[in-house]
């Protein structure tokens, strides 16, 4: 066991897989010698050699296409898109190709690729270093979408993603790379070292895709969250004095519907939190599912707390970010307070 922050855990996952499987290789913009702008691939090129972890041209479409071709060959490429905001030039290759190879070839071809990319705001990155595009992937049949909220999960989920036979979009909440930021930006952030989930085995282990975790048990209401928002929800529950059951979804697709239904049936109330813009965000799907599966258990409208339907503005980071204040308000509304 070692103490790791989320970047170290992600780095460790790739190192473990590069070690175990010669078919794994890692590439992307600046990931080679330099080790990535967030240092996620630091040391990998040195340790495993230049053909196993290397830089690419600045062409997200080319990066993903190359990965698909390699996947079809039989490799397990892990690519980094420098920021999730820059994944769109590769969107066609993800949606029209990676997601469909297996289906359209009736299982003849597939590509077990992993696309890692830092997402979310809170680092004063302005509108093109802050986006949360998960809903643009959950709508697409054929890909899986994963978001970790702790170092332990990040490593275990990333290893599962790399080993998965389907393409996985692995979104990394960059705001919590270094510590479990809970949205109280006015307070100092504690480092991961003080969080139990920073205890991370150095070797191989997995956290299964498609399984949610209960970040906090509770009976008043259910919170559905992922990534940074798990920590925000925990803080909000404390602030609001609500005995919330906070479910950390971990995988958006395939979703752990059983965990959700079980909790909402118990609490009868539900608050959904994400940082992405509200309209047609993943919260919409969650709301729809909860009302479909738990309609007769619901005692209050499901609340959605999300980013506003605007780009993420540089100067208004904290007015945009769905922080603990807004989440606590939603909890109170859900409780009828």
């Amino acid at each position, binding site marked *: 066991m070692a103490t790791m922050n989320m970047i170290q855990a992600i780095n460790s996952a790739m190192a473990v897989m590069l070690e175990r499987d010669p078919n794994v290789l890692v590439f992307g913009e600046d990931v080679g010698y330099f080790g990535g702008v967030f240092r996620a691939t630091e040391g990998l090129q040195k340790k495993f050699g230049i053909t196993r972890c290397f830089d690419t041209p600045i062409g997200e479409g*080319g990066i993903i*296409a190359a990965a698909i071709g*390699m996947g079809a060959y039989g*490799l397990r490429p892990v690519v980094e898109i420098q920021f999730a905001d820059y994944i769109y030039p590769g969107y066609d290759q993800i949606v029209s190709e990676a997601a469909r190879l297996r*289906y359209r070839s009736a299982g003849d071809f597939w590509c077990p690729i992993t696309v890692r990319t830092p997402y979310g705001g809170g680092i004063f990155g302005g509108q093109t270093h802050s986006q949360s595009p998960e809903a643009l992937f959950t709508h697409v049949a054929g890909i899986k979408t994963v978001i970790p909220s702790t170092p332990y999960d990040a490593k275990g989920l990333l290893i599962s993603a790399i080993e998965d036979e389907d393409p996985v979009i692995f979104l990394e909440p960059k705001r919590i790379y270094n510590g479990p930021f809970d949205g109280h930006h006015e307070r100092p952030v504690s480092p991961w070292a003080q969080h139990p989930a920073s205890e991370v085995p150095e070797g191989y282990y997995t956290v299964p895709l*498609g399984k949610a975790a209960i970040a906090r048990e509770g009976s008043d209401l259910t919170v559905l969250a992922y990534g940074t928002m798990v920590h925000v929800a925990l803080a909000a529950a404390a602030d609001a004095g609500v005995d919330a059951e906070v479910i950390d979804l971990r995988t958006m697709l*395939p979703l752990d*519907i059983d965990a959700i239904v079980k909790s909402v049936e118990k609490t009868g109330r539900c608050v959904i939190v994400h940082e992405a813009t509200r309209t047609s965000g993943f919260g919409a799907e969650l709301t729809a599912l909860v009302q479909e599966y738990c309609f007769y258990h619901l005692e209050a409208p499901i609340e959605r707390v999300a980013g506003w339907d605007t780009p993420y503005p540089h100067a208004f980071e904290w007015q945009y970010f769905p922080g603990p204040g807004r989440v606590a308000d939603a909890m109170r509304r859900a409780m009828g307070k």
Partner: protein
Amino acid sequence: MQNKKKLSLYIPQPEQRPGDIPDFSKIVIPPPGNVPRPDSAVAAHDIRDIAFKLIRVLDNDGKAVGPWNPRLDPETLKRGLRLMMLTRAYDDRMYRAQRQGKTSFYMKCTGEEAVSIAPALALDPGDMCFPSYRQQGLLLTRGYPMVDMMCQVYSNVRDPLKGRQLPIMYSSKAHGFFTISGNLGTQFSQAVGWAMASAYKGDDRIAATWIGEGTTAEGDFHQGLNFASVYRAPVILNVVNNQWAISSFQGIAGGEQATFAARGIGYGVPGLRVDGNDFLAVFAVTQWAAERARNNLGATLIEHYTYRAEGHSTSDDPSRYRPMDEAKNWPLGDPIVRLKTHLIAIGAWSEAEHEKQQKDVIEDVRAANKEAESYGTLGTNPPSVKTMFEDVYKEMPWHLRRQRQELGV
């Protein structure tokens, strides 16, 4: 600056439109044999000019001339001829099947048979092809059963793709034929990734990909060329310039200002331009590019200069946008006729044999079609509906299981 000129917007237009007399006189056709053949290890920058020439082997009398003559034995040539004739017969039959309502859609490769069949013969069987939708010749050359192709076209119970794909979007890993995409150009950059993987693994298989000249306008063309250049990927990048992209002539894709082979120059990738209706020339350039790739010298871009002799697809009517008999006037002729003439010229073939073979391939196609139709045509005897929910993922997730239940299958 005073008195600046008014700018004006230029829109490329083809020389002729319906009603005009086809006239290809502006196309300069250099004589065969006049392009030198450098060693395949040549530096790309030493052969930039080749991208503006036209590599030809067969002359008007059917003689093979010049340094690019691949000196193929008559057996290989006859095999090529037969495969081209078979492909054309197959196309004709399937086109009719669509007209008969037996399927929804079909696309012929008439006039372009050489650009897939010659490469398929020049490549090794393990080499991986990433084709567009107009390289059915690859499959037939590599021995993929014609009945299976037909079953795919008919989306019937024996369709290897379980009715999921539009007709002609074949896939066969066993034949090194990548699953065709309806989205143009995506295969071009994927092929480069496959080639990089092969190089990474110390394998000896190379990749080849085909893209239409119209499709070179997609970003994937640039991604593919660029990745191939940077990592010196062992891949053959074929551009099939058949002059048309649906109703748009090649000028709309940039063909007025330079050749498509010349696109390689800016990436340091050799660009060869070949008479795509000249089976021998196409074979020769493929061989050259394959040799280069196998020697770890990277990619070659090949422009196949040819002509789409028929409509874009069964949904198209080319007489709406080009002169009726344009195809017949194409100055580079027909690949089947030209190879036949060559074989006869070298004494390895005769009109009689040709006529017989023509009947044979039609009979082969007829027999295959009879079998394929016995398994059903579109809407009759489809695969099990259950399969609709399979292969979205390796394992079916809960939500697809529930959706399948909802449909009651």
